[in-house]
């Protein structure tokens, strides 16, 4: 049981790190603001969730677990909301998403905003 928990949390931690790394690469390499938001937002959620879950498996029952849960809740709520608000504010201020052709917007960043 111990071993199984260790292995699972190990996998979660590694995959979470992988996600955050790809997210950072996206943040660094992507061409315009909206794609960067996409990269940062998605991997923030996935990476943070995975890493925190991995840590939770190590924590065992108790206050530490509760605190980790609280952090998870906060980061899920806060980072997604912040990304949404940023994209909305940027769009409102007149920053246009970069388009592939002139007539078709790339779907990913437009679909994340109402």
């Amino acid at each position, binding site marked *: 049981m111990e071993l199984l928990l260790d292995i699972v949390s*190990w996998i979660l*931690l*590694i995959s*979470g*790190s*992988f996600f*955050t*790394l790809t*997210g*950072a*690469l996206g*943040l*660094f390499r992507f061409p315009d*603001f909206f794609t*960067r*938001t996409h990269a*940062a937002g998605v991997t*923030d959620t996935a*990476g*943070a969730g995975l*890493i*925190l879950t*991995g*840590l939770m498996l*190590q*924590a065992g029952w108790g206050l*530490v677990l509760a*605190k*980790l849960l*609280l*952090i998870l809740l*906060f*980061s899920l*709520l*806060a*980072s997604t*909301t*912040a*990304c949404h*608000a*940023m994209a909305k*504010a*940027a769009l*409102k*201020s*007149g*920053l246009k998403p970069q388009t592939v052709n002139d007539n078709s917007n790339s779907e990913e960043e437009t679909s994340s905003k109402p």
Partner: protein
Amino acid sequence: MYIIPAVILLIVMGIALCRAFMGPTLYDRILAVNTFGTKTVLFIAVIDFLSGRQAFLDIAIVYALINFISVIGILRFFEYSSKTALAEED
């Protein structure tokens, strides 16, 4: 075992910092600040487990909260001056 996520998170924080320096528009900077904050939260959580003393998760919670609040504050600043936001010259 916790050392790998810790190192990767440090790298990611470095990259976010670069984006905050370069950032062509101000929104890029805000985004980088936000990413930097969330990664710091994770980093502290991992460091807690790395050091084997888990009393410090409170700090990670505070970071998460403060990060959110300051991003909101920054965005609110732009409710007033959204026209000038893009006209950034470095």
